[in-house]
């Protein structure tokens, strides 16, 4: 397949995206940014599925990507609703302020 992107590049991109998302999730305290990091990680996983589907010529990878897309949409709506609630209650979107839930 002349001119196409080599598989290894796509794998590396997916790994890098996933690592960036994870790093953002662990480093950020702002819940909105954390949600965005999760989105990046989900997309990295989606990319890996698409790549694998293209490699073995099967539709499963694309089906999985659509599933992940739906999942991400649902997740974002629930996550944003929770963040809004937290913001109303503690006037902050700091993840560590949610610690009060434990005590």
């Amino acid at each position: 397949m002349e001119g196409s992107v080599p598989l290894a590049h796509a794998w590396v991109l997916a790994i890098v995206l996933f690592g960036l998302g994870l790093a953002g999730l662990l480093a950020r305290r702002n819940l909105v940014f954390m949600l965005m990091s999760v989105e990046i990680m989900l997309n990295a996983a989606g990319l890996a599925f698409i790549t694998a589907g293209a490699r073995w010529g099967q539709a499963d990878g694309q089906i999985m990507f659509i599933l992940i897309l739906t999942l991400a949409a649902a997740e974002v709506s629930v996550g944003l609703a929770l963040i809004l609630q937290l913001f109303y209650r503690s006037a902050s979107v700091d993840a560590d302020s949610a610690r009060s839930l434990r005590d």
Partner: protein
Amino acid sequence: MAALLWIVPALPLLGFLLLFLAGGRASRLVTAIIGVGSTALAALLTLALAAWFLHAGQPIVRATLWQWIGVGGFTAPIGFELDALSLVMTLVITFVGFLIHLYSSEFMQHDDGYGRFFCYMNLFVASMLILVLADNLLLLFLGWEGVGLCSYLLIGFWYRDAANGRAARKAFIVTRVGDTAFMIGLLLLATHLGTLDIAALMERAQSAWPAGSALPTAAAALLLGGAVGKSAQLPLQTWLPDAMAGPTPVSALIHAATMVTAGVYLIARTHTLFNLAPSVQLALTLIGAATLLLAAFSALAQHDLKRILAYSTMSQIGYMFLALGVGAWTAAIFHFMTHAFFKALLFLAAGAVIMRIDDEHDIFRMGGLKRELPVAFWSFLIGAASLAALPLVTAGFYSKDMILWGAWNSGPRGPILWGAGLLGALLTPIYIFRAVFVVFFGERHTAPSGRYGARIVIPLALLSALALTAGFVDMPPALGNVTAFSRLLDPILPARQEVPTAASTEAAVMVIAALTALLGVGIAWWIYGRRAAAPARLFGTRPALALRRFWLCGWGFDWLYDCLLVRPFLWLARINRADGVDAFYGLIAAASRLFNRLLSRTESGRLRRYAGWIAAGSLAAIAIAMFA
């Protein structure tokens, strides 16, 4: 008539239920009417049954009410059986029981627990009747435990005094030792012979087990253990003297006339089994002979009037065991009957003395009461005469003579056993007439108060009459040869294999016993009536005082058991207070608490730390999947 049999135990049971449900709210009059009335009706019904029984030619009556237990092939009904043996027992229980109830209705008049007292007493009579009328050993055991419970409740009747509670617990625990043996015996019989129905059991034992083999020996030994506990024989005799903590009518009914003779009844009832186990029967004989002497010596040293009578009860039951052991079954039951009359009389008379002199039990603080309390004096004297077996005129003479003759005539060991019995027959008049002379003669130390009502005088008079005349139903060949009692029991209990002896020997044995009793009274009079100087000097010496202390505490059995059993047990309980077994389970609990603390520290509430842990965990899982 047979259909009425179940009503006999049901009447006092009904009385118990009524008094129990009344819970002490009923008035004294109503309580007395229910309590005394139920036993009176039972006595009348028993009399009617007895008349019918003798008229109908002594049939064995069985009345099964319903099935109690049925598991696999094993069944135990609630069923009653009347034969000559249980008829004699029932007659004594209901009649002596009725007289003692009547006496109690006045004796306990000023007691707060009047209703409670009659409630327990009625339950006792019901249990005792179930015991003697039961047609299977399991129902018999129910009655056996019922009387044990009532004994416990009534010894500790005045529960506000801690000592009474201790005495009650002691009686309960010591008899429990015997009851455990009894229960194991029941299990052994049920597993090996497949039934507990007494008649079937005896039949199967006879056909399945050869005489002297291991199984009947074990079963008989276990039953003997139960009998020894209930009847206060060596080595489980220590509870009876302490049981005198209960009210005097209780001592008369439970600890003299009826319950303590349940062991005698049990052995007589299962005599087939004992015949199959000669070694157990020998043990029975020796236990009886040893107890009768031990208790008689102890009675010599007591100064509490009721304890004298308690040791005398042990001694007389020793005679019954001796009679059972040598195979003189009828003699044992005969002595049971006369003993029930004269010992109940002695206790009631003692109670009559004690209630008039401000609950004083020490005979040396009484004295000279003959003139003040003629009713108590004459009834106590008659009871004492019958217990001492004064010849010809008392019931005790005929029954004791029958036992002594049975002991003499029991093979090569006979003369030795007879000698033990004769020594007991010498000691009996000494200790009981010691009480008579000390309590009723000499100088007065107390001033009696109050007077007796009819409800105390009538039982004393009736029991006095019975204590004198009950022996005339069976007299030895030399004295008219009346055999009404033996003939009554002959179909039930096996006849003795009498060694043929000259009639003159039997007469000589009787004369020796009679002279021994008179000699004993003479000795008692010499020491305590005339207050001769020589014995007083002898009693003051050091060995005599030591011996007296030894006998006073009942040959030190309490001390022995205290050292051997009570103290080691308490020591074990003390060192195990922390509960060694529990420590293991405590360890498990402590470990899980530790892990709980460790794990709960990871739950910090910091979201990013959770995410980090999840990432690290996933990484680890992937690493394991890839490299391992």
